[in-house]
């Protein structure tokens, strides 16, 4: 399968292109709608269920500046598909052009191990790991803005900052277990 390449195409003038990958195709739509609201730069959003992307869109697809994997922690499937999709990304992307967006992290029905696995994954790839509240409108707007902050840098629209630079500051780190008993 052909892998997605970060520099195979020329960037557009004052445009940033983001790819949202989510197996459930729930949250990505609302995110996309909010993302294209951005007026300071033209943001193009591509939605995908998983990678690899179909070949036929190869030409129409602009250069992707940031790939976001949306993982719903309550479903194992969601994580697995994201994990499976990763190998269709060109290594170049992992220099600050990939990030993970986790939803439902505070849900009681989430096994703690899963969050840890996601952390480990993100950390091993030196990618930032964001958390989002997909239920509330505020949560969505906030998530959108954070993605935009990263996207703008990744698309080279922020002077004095590069994707790699930012990702060095924000990349996820595997926490040593913060399980000191909290009730005593």
């Amino acid at each position, binding site marked *: 399968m052909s892998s997605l390449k970060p520099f195979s195409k020329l960037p557009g003038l004052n445009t940033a292109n983001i790819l949202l990958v989510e197996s459930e195709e729930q949250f990505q739509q609302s995110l996309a709608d909010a993302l294209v*609201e951005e*007026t300071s730069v033209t943001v193009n959003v591509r939605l995908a269920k998983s990678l690899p992307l179909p070949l036929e869109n190869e030409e129409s697809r602009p250069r992707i500046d940031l790939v976001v994997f949306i993982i719903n922690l309550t479903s194992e499937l969601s994580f697995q598909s994201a994990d499976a999709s990763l190998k269709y990304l060109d290594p170049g992307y992992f220099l600050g052009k990939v990030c993970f967006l986790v939803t439902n992290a505070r849900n009681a029905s989430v096994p703690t191990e899963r969050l840890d696995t996601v952390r480990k994954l993100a950390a091993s790839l030196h990618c930032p790991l964001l958390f989002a509240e997909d239920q509330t409108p505020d949560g969505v*707007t906030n998530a959108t803005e954070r993605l935009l902050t990263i996207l703008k840098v990744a698309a080279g629209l922020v002077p004095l900052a590069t994707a790699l630079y930012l990702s060095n500051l924000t990349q996820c780190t595997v926490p040593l277990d913060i399980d000191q008993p909290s009730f005593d």
Partner: protein
Amino acid sequence: MEGTSTKGGVLSLLSLLEVQARSRRHVPPQRSRVKELRAEAEALRVRREQLKTEIQTHQSLQRLRTSLDRQSTHDEEEEEEEEEEMDEDSENSQLLKLMARHTRVKDLLLAHHLIGGYDIVKTRHGKGVCVSVATAYEGVCLETYNLEMDLKPTLRICRHNVPPFVPLSSLAEQGDMQTDIRAFLETLSQHLNAFAGRKQQLKLVKEQHKTIEVMESNALCSILVLMFTVPKTKTAILCTLNYSDHTACLPARVQFECDVKEILESTEWRKNCSLLMETPLHKALMTMKKMGNIV
């Protein structure tokens, strides 16, 4: 203690600011009216160009179509002059020709579909087909019924939306489906059309003849009991229509019941009987009304 700490604090004020900033960002940038109009005009121009080209291609297509149609009917020499006419045409004539053929075939298919032929779609990569049978009555298109069939190992109906009271399975057995499907489909479509027709008639009756009471009917519309009233004497006549032949829209048996026997003896009611046997129900009733036999 009461004054909760975050209200009015710097932090909450910051959040407030953020919200305001957002709302400001989301109003689209002010563009001057003139610019807008220019853009609009430009867009319209482009659209016009598109339409023009479309029209052109369509026209040329039409020409080809007509020529093709003539080819299929007329003889050669015209065809030749067609050819040379074609040659001075632009280099994409080949493509146009193909398109023309395509449209033609499609139209044929559509026509076939419209005149009530079944259209057949290959499903599951040729492992099965889906046949759809259209029904119509008096030029009114009614429901379309579908059958999905497996081809291998033997022809077998695996899915359909034919109403349960149409004896599909028995039909499949009788008109042996394996050997000639055509016959089977024929009978089936007869059944369905008849059923649709009867249903339609009943519907029409209910709509047009409020004075006539539909005493009883059934899902198959194979039995229908109506109540007439004779104008002057106001005697009630019970009319039972029995469509025992399910492939027909006309009743096989019509019988009247009335406690005043002599009415039924009368010639006009005999006529009515035959009338009901021969003409569609709602029309028959119409004429009967005209004759003044019923209210």
